[in-house]
């Protein structure tokens, strides 16, 4: 197990997992200029929280922290919700995106769930994918933790074989820590 931490988010990673925790650089304040390392998904505004029940895409890019955790090699360029990465997934692959929203959203009904959620096998659906990919499935949940608002979006490489993958996801979420701002 390896701990990866940045911007008040700490993930305990199993062996062989990749992780990135980043904010998209501020073009006005960063000497290196903007980067697409955590590119926004197409056609979205950057600040608004998604409506409950909406599919996860297209979703907003954000200037708040975004954490990507995966048990396969993450490509250098990804959308906040994994576009560019999920297309590379195989049947036993898992992709987890933790996307933070502005703190004010933590008090809204959408983010009213307190604490980091866990998923059941029935929470995953092929229709929850940002773009449907044959055989794969996704799930999302909104929550607040220590006054911070997050969307948790998980993609599994196989809907048919999701049970063991869900167990891995929940084990990963059990090791996730979010500090107050």
């Amino acid at each position, binding site marked *: 197990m390896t701990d990866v931490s940045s911007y008040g988010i700490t993930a305990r990673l199993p062996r062989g997992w990749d992780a*990135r925790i980043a904010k998209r650089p501020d073009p006005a304040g960063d000497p290196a200029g903007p980067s697409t390392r955590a590119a926004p998904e197409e056609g979205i505004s950057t600040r608004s929280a998604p409506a409950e029940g909406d599919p996860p895409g297209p979703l907003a890019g954000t200037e708040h922290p975004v954490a990507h955790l995966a048990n396969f*090699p993450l490509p250098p360029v990804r959308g906040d919700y994994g576009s560019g990465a999920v297309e590379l997934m195989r049947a036993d692959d898992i992709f987890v995106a933790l996307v933070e929203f502005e703190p004010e959203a933590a008090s809204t009904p959408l983010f009213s769930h307190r604490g980091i959620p*866990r998923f059941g096998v029935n929470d995953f659906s092929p229709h929850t994918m940002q773009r449907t990919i044959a055989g794969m499935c996704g799930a999302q949940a909104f929550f607040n933790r220590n006054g911070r608002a997050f969307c948790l979006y998980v993609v599994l490489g196989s809907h048919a074989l999701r049970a063991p993958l869900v167990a891995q996801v929940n*084990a990963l979420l059990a090791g996730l820590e979010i500090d107050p701002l």
Partner: protein
Amino acid sequence: MTAAIVALGVVVGLLGVLVVGLLRSHADVLRALHDLGICEDDLAAAGTAEGRRTAGRRTTRTTGEIRMVPGVAAPGASSSLGRLVDVSGVDPHGGAVHIGLEGSRGLTLLAFLSSGCGSCLDFWRAFATDEVEQVPGRDTRVVVVTRGPEEESPSEVAALASDRVTTVMSSAAWDDYDVPVSPYFLLVDGSRGVVGEGAGGSWAQVVDLLRKAAADAGLALDDDRPRFTRRDLLVGRDRELRADRELAAAGIEPGSPELYAPLHAAPGDGADGEDGAR
């Protein structure tokens, strides 16, 4: 007359066997010398005055002396072959980066570069263009590793870094792999660790070296055929390796108590996580 012909034939036959034996012995000697790194040119030179003068240097060569072109770093005193350590650090903008190498699929090329070394410029340039696609292997990813922010300027690294490759700033990775100096390259296999290492003066040269290193390691990089033979599939080798990998990813190693737990789980202990705090 007949007896004489038969005797002559026997003698010729014996001489033939003798010649074949000598040739075979000679081939064995040459093969042994080749395995030691001594080629026929070295043996020919050994008979000359120049050869006698440089005999000591040749001896060094057989133990692994490598000549480098100017500007290219010599490999370290200790080899990283077989080493397998994940790379953790930060990106040039301050975010956390963790490259999981242990058990990862495909190959990873760790390119140890620095912002201030002139020899590294060709690599920074190549990684910002389509040339980076020349890296051998369909699944091979390129990860640039610089020293950490305490030793490198993040803004300079950010200015050089390309979005085509992952860049991580980690002094620990340099220490973990005993990287002597930049530029330096390690080809890492998720199950076998470092399978090739070295330096090169240009990206094209490194690509060539990578192909050779991969071939030496028995990796068919640009082969579209599946890695397993039909026999492997029939005997379930693929399935066995996949099962081992999944068990290891779940933290279940040989001898783990989970392997001996009863099959029936207690109510509420299901893997579906329905009892989670959703």
